């Protein structure tokens, strides 16, 4: 069996360009890896091998015609809430069982335009609600570093597939940390772009004012490559930003001289695992060694971020998920009348956590509570955003842990939603502020579990956080380590 599946996107693209391998060979290697490991990992919900190989052959044919798009022939997996024409799109939910997407999400269309092969659909917490991928209605996904542990979530499948070399790169979505936290748990790079950098058209909405699509990759360079491919203004998404899309990968390199990196004094909290803190502090030192100036900053309203998030996100979700009623697509459980049908369909189709959030969101918007919860949360959201604006006058990027702990055991937190919610305490403020953040591997715990460094930047300064992440990554060995499952030799 070949080891082409272990390549990074940049390496694969170079090999393909030099005709050292074909896209068909590359895709076959990835498919073989999925075949071999995914029974244990459970990253994929569906893999259409036939279609992937067909796209790969088409990419090879295109190359022999002289085409040379940046991702030509590179396979990319997508989270199960992105619409891909002709494929299922269940969002990890039973309620969308049987739904076949009639269109491509803009990010998917852009990947195709860049030459990528769309590989398969990755497991997730139902409707992106959760931090462990245990809320998938179909299967748990296991952390490739320790199969008894969760991969994080909600983009757990997207992270686990990259970590296990079952994909070169994947797309996920991040509403409160759903790309960065699983990337941290699985030891890969996960980027949440600025709100509006990537079109949300075709991304099944969880919380529209917070959702962003982003890449999960083996290296910072790969995230830069994918970000350039999927970014840009889209007339189908009014909230997408009309800002030029730089060649992010071309801007990587160099040390961190002249950059000021902020450490929020409020973020090194009580619940922070000692080993995680140690790794992050070591990473801060490394950045200093690379020439960065470390400054203390304050983000005083971040302590309200989780509460604000669970009001705004659930309010938006309660409306976004109202369309799943069994009338036009997906699961339908017949009832006496339409309202009865809705009740029965939604009772049977949604899982526990989704129901919990719909009820919470409906409540905070109800007349009599709307002002006390929803309106107040919006005001605090503004304060959180201002905190960052003030902080970025003192620094170019901010360093924090990605999550308070490394990956926990399956089942450990599933019955304690509040504890699980607090797991996103460092990532949620970034979504509320609409800015960008990236998770980069920064070490391992004594149990050999990856730890992530969270680099946060101002709106549309993905170039800055990618530069910091890349310099740090190149100076450290973490990204080169592979979980045992992936380094098992092929027989």
């Amino acid at each position, binding site marked *: 069996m070949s080891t082409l599946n272990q390549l990074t996107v940049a390496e694969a693209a170079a090999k393909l360009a030099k005709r050292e391998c074909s896209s068909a060979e590359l895709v076959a290697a990835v498919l073989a890896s999925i075949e071999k490991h995914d029974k244990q990992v459970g990253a994929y919900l569906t893999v259409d091998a036939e279609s992937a190989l067909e796209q790969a052959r088409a990419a090879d044919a295109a190359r022999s015609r002289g085409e040379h798009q940046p991702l030509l022939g590179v396979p990319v997996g997508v989270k199960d*809430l*992105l*619409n891909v024409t002709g494929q299922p*799109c269940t*969002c990890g939910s039973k309620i*969308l069982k049987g*739904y076949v*997407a*009639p*269109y491509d*999400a803009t990010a998917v269309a852009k990947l195709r335009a860049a030459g990528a092969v769309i590989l398969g659909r990755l497991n997730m917490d139902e409707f992106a609600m959760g931090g462990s991928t245990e809320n998938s209605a179909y299967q748990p996904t296991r952390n490739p570093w320790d199969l008894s542990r969760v991969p994080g979530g909600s983009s757990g499948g997207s992270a686990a597939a990259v970590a296990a070399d079952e994909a070169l790169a994947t797309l996920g979505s991040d509403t409160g940390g759903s790309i960065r936290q699983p990337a941290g748990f699985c030891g890969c790079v996960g980027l949440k772009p600025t709100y509006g950098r990537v079109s*949300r*058209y*075709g*991304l*099944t*909405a969880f*919380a*529209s*004012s917070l959702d962003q699509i982003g890449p999960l990759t083996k290296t910072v360079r790969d995230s830069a490559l994918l970000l350039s491919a999927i970014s840009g203004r889209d*007339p*189908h*998404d*009014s*909230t997408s930003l009309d800002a030029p899309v730089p060649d992010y990968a071309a801007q990587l390199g160099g040390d961190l001289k002249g950059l000021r990196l902020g450490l929020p004094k409020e973020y090194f909290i009580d619940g922070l695992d000692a080993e995680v803190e140690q790794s992050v502090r070591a990473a801060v030192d490394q950045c200093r060694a690379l020439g960065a100036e470390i400054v203390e900053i304050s983000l005083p309203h971040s302590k309200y971020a989780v509460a604000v998030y669970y009001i705004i996100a659930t*309010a*938006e979700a*309660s*409306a976004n998920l*109202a*369309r799943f*009623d069994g*009338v*036009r*697509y997906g699961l339908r459980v017949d009832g006496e009348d*339409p*309202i009865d049908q*809705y009740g029965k369909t939604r009772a049977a189709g949604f899982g526990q956590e989704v129901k919990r959030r719909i009820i919470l969101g*409906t409540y905070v*918007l*109800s*007349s009599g509570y*709307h002002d006390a919860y*929803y309106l107040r949360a919006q005001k605090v959201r503004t304060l959180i955003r201002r905190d960052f604006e003030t902080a970025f006058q003192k620094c170019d990027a901010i360093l924090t842990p990605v999550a308070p702990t490394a990956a926990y055991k399956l089942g450990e937190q599933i019955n304690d939603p509040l504890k699980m919610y607090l797991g996103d305490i460092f990532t949620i403020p970034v979504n509320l502020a609409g800015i960008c953040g990236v998770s980069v591997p920064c070490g391992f715990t004594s149990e050999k579990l990856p730890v992530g460094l969270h680099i946060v930047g101002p709106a549309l300064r993905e170039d800055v956080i990618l530069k910091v992440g890349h310099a740090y990554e190149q100076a450290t060995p973490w990204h080169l380590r592979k979980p045992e499952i992936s380094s098992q030799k092929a027989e």
Partner: protein
Amino acid sequence: MNFEANVGLEVHVQLRTKTKIFCGCPTTFGAPPNTHVCPVCLGYPGAMPAMNSEAIRLTVLSGLMLGCKINPYSKMDRKNYYYPDMPKNYQISQYDQPLCLGGGIEITRPDGSKKTIRLTRIHIEEDVGKNMHFAASSGIDFNRAGTPLMEIVTEPDMAGADEAMAFLEALKEILAYGGISDVNLEEGNMRCDVNSSVRPVGQAQLGTKTELKNMNTFKGVHRALSYEIARQIADVEKGQRIRQETRRWDDAAGITLTMRSKEEAHDYRYFPEPDLLPIVLSQAQIDEWAKVLPELPEKRRARMMADYGIPEYDAGVLAADQDIANYFEATAKLAKSAKAASNWIMTTVLAKLTELHLTIGEVKITPAQLAGLINLVEAKTINMPTAKEVFELMFAQGGDAAAIVQAKGLAQVSDTGAIEKFVDEAIAANAKTVADYKGGKEAALKSLIGQVMKLSKGKANPGLVNDLLKQKLS
């Protein structure tokens, strides 16, 4: 005790756009069910709305025509409720920051007096689909889902069914004038909810109101409102309290019935639509749109009376339709008599349009040609009967009146010598009639005039004939 009614309307008007409000699907009426749909208007997972700016322009234009304040900043909101014809189970509408505020419409009451009905607001929103019920099942046609609507909300300023009707007629006329909507009631272009309450005359506080939902004909509004107001007055007189509730009109039975009480009312859980940006309008943009603002029908009537000296009745008939008013003004400017132009259009032209189901735009006679015809009559080149004949020819094939008159030899004979010959002939051939006239029978003169006209093949100038006959018989 004497009661008065207070009526307010919420009128939903379909805006005249080519495509739906948030997607590129066409708004054409009458297509087979579910053929004008896409992921956006079907509420598919991941689909997002994109605002149709034409819907905003038409609504702002309406606001300007109706004297509203245009909000420089407004936003879209989600109105949440479950219904099978609503693809997303929320409607994208405007809650607390609508596009237009205030304004008013002047109506004419049945007694001829004028009254202004104040508007509260105008906002835009998307329409829903249409439920269809069959013998053993139900279906939904989503072709209409996502059609742009403008909702016009009035203050409770109308005193009853007649004023409500007058308001709707006036509104319809204005919207047609502005090209805002096709205002085709059969196709559901205008539908309204009717709020009404009654109170003893002299009481300051409004009575408890009821709402009649989804009325789609003006006649229906009139009947339902007449019934509902009478019902409320009768109930109050019996000492019963009016319940705040939503009612529906049973057209066959001619009564209104309870649909749901206040307690069962929806909690719409409005919140700002996160998928759409706020609507920010600069004054420059509003001014640009205002450039094509048409004159309101009411103003136009007054101006036409002043400019052309035509009676109020004529102005009312002609200004009711913008295209006809334009046709009249173009004709009147070229015609020697504006009143003659008004008469021709009100009677002859409009009768033709009705008879042949044509619009004024389809008529072959141009205003210049009609003015030419009128001027031939004014110059006494042809008389009225001839003019009618020429009009028929022009209507069928167009053409210049003078040319037709010349080609067909229809010019009126005003040559006294020629007419005198016909007069003498008539007198000679009708001795009995002449004797009758001389004996005092005035009517006999008419008969003699008729004879002369016959002899002249209709071309003699009737005035000259009259004068000559009188002169010869005196």
